[in-house]
């Protein structure tokens, strides 16, 4: 059943080839939507087949287990919504002259390549290959960030490529050191970087070299996940990207990079005990939340506000990973999925607001709810998801993370995290209500909602509500993934 493992990589690549051949057309855009949908379908089929085991493909280069399935579900869901909305978004950009035919063609090719690279990253059994895939996402998204070719977009692209490449280079150095330690623990050179081989040799890894490797891997993949100290690219890139790309980066890319860290953590924890990465993740996670919460308070730009909210959530995810219990890891995975869908809603809605006003300043926009029920409604639902309000899923995940932190005797971290969550909550509510409520300005432009964007928003709202009411079989999937990652009970 190798083909099933290859499908989430090959389907988007085929869509990219098709888009390259015919250019930006309605048809090629919908082929990309189909490719994203096939990633989701593959995840569902794999999920129903593998149970608590793992399946390998292409000579053990690829693997599929509960974590892979979880991440493929996130990629497939957000990917489908974002590529669907892209159809209307890019056509509107073309109509307004913000991009030209060449820009649209490039967009049509790069987005599916980006999806394929993320699928490869979560399917890789070889952590070297996983690294290659994550670095490939940087290359694929560079010109997506710079899509509008303005001065600000160029600046954001430069910072994004340079900071992420340096960060991810450190992760490669960490990978090399782990390879070195594993070779000296008796693994054979061809397969040493495979996760199953690393796990089998983990207890014999040299602790001093592994410390160095783990530190570098945390910094490196942390850069791509938006964690300090290499977080500075995030707000710039998210605010300049086209809305569907912002949704993909914020909702999926950050968590794909974090899932790489979870993979590494399962090996390092066996070699060094849980203490080392727990300390590292707590420091990095809480500092990330602190920076994000402070910048949320003073934010005047709504796309940057959403970017910092993503940072805050990734910080919380890092803190949850530090707790490391089964409850914490399962909650973290639910958090990642719910955040992905919620962030997609707000970014897609924000994209239409930006298109209508040609501005991303919070002060320029009022009375959205009264002006467009769909955009306003989607923004409200998305914001409610991100704020962790019941009945949405992040309420449950944040509650579980709190419980897990308390039972892991990390009450101080719980206290600090809760305080920062409350600050971020207040800032989001204040800025959100300023944009959404109130009477509309008489001269305010109409907010256009292309059909495909409307479709993606309605689907996203439905999914958010459904996920909030019941996670269904996903609960079992998340628990299996947590157990497989070596979480303590």
């Amino acid at each position, binding site marked *: 059943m190798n083909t099933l493992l290859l499908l989430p990589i090959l389907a988007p690549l085929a869509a990219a080839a098709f888009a390259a051949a015919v250019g930006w057309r309605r048809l090629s855009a919908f082929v990309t939507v189909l490719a994203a949908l096939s990633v989701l379908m593959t995840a569902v089929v794999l999920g129903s087949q593998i149970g608590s085991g793992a399946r390998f493909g292409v000579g053990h*280069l690829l693997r599929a287990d509960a974590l892979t399935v979880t991440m493929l579900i996130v990629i497939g869901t957000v990917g489908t919504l974002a590529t669907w909305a892209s159809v209307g978004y890019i056509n509107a950009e073309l109509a307004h002259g913000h991009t030209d035919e060449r820009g649209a063609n490039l967009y049509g090719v790069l987005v599916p390549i980006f999806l394929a690279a993320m699928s490869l990253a979560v399917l890789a059994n*070889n952590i*070297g*290959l996983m*690294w*290659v895939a994550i*670095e*490939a996402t*940087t*290359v694929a998204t*560079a*010109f997506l960030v*710079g899509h509008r*070719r303005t*001065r*600000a977009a*160029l*600046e*954001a*692209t*430069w*910072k994004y*490529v*340079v900071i992420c*490449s*340096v960060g991810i*280079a450190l992760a*490669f*150095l960490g*990978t*090399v*050191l782990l*390879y*070195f*330690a594993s*070779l*000296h623990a008796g693994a054979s*050179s*061809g397969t*040493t*970087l495979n996760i199953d081989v690393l796990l089998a040799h983990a207890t014999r890894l*040299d602790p*001093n*070299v592994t*410390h*160095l490797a783990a530190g570098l891997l945390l910094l490196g993949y942390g850069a791509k996940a938006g964690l300090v100290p290499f977080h500075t690219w995030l*707000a*710039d890139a998210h*605010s*300049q990207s086209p809305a569907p790309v912002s949704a993909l980066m914020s909702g999926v890319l950050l968590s794909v990079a974090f899932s790489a860290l979870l993979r590494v953590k399962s090996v390092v924890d066996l070699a060094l005990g849980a203490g080392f990465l727990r300390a590292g993740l707590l420091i990095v996670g809480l500092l990330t939340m602190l920076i994000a919460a402070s*910048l949320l308070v*003073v*934010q005047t730009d709504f796309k*940057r506000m959403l970017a910092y909210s993503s940072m805050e959530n990734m910080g919380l995810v890092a803190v949850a990973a530090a707790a490391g219990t089964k409850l914490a890891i399962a909650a973290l995975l639910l958090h990642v999925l719910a955040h992905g869908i919620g962030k997609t809603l707000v970014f897609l809605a924000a994209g239409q607001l930006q298109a209508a006003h040609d501005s991303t300043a919070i002060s320029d926009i009022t009375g959205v709810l009264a002006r467009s029920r769909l955009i306003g409604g989607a923004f409200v639902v998305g914001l409610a998801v991100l704020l962790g309000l019941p009945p949405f899923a992040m309420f449950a995940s944040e509650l579980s993370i709190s419980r897990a932190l308390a039972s892991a005797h990390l009450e101080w971290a719980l206290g600090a995290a809760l305080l920062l969550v409350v600050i971020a909550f207040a800032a989001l509510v204040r800025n959100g209500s300023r944009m959404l409520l109130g009477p509309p300005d008489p001269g305010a432009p109409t907010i256009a909602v292309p059909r495909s964007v409307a479709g993606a928003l309605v689907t996203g709202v439905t999914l958010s509500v459904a996920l909030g009411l019941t996670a269904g079989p996903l609960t079992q999937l998340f628990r299996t993934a947590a157990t497989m990652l070596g979480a303590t009970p």
Partner: protein
Amino acid sequence: MNQATYTGVLDLAAGAFLLAAVLIVWRRELRAIVRMLAAQGVALATIPLTVGMYQKDAALVVVGVVVLLLRAVVLPLLLARAVGTEDHERRESTPLVNTTASLLITAGLTVLAYAVTRPIIDLDPSPATRAVPAAFAVILIAVFVMVSRRRALSQAVGFMMLDNGIAATAFLITSGVPLIVELGASLDVLFAVLVLGLLTGHMRRTFGGTDLDQLRELRD
């Protein structure tokens, strides 16, 4: 190749590798910097070629040839094309840290590299591993170049130096990572440098120069 020649060639290559990094810190002329980078690529490729010949590992020799082509020829050529033709574009602008201080910092970073790499040498005290502090020193110096230079191209050079340092570490301590990872990583670096080169061109057209101090529109 006997043990003594092997150790000698490796040490010489590692020394030349580090020296090229120091010269890059010293020089301000962008074309000279790119030439130094090509020289560093040659020193880097010498490592897998030597180890490959010593261990009679044909695959590693092939990797060495690929590294030579990529890091000593293709990537420097790409960067050289991105150097502007106008006079003010061909030199690094007034540096944030002056040359003397930069060289002192470089020396300090080299000492730090020796301290950081102790656990690696302790685990496997072979002749190749003993040269790894030079590779780590280049990594640290590269990060310093990236934070202290103000031209887009200098940052790209710093990034390539960082990558050279990591590749040298991999060749010295593990005789290179598995082939598929090596190929993938090389491809990624090639694309990343291509992207940086293209962006430098866009920047020159949009801003009329490549001074990174102009990148200050986005902030909080």
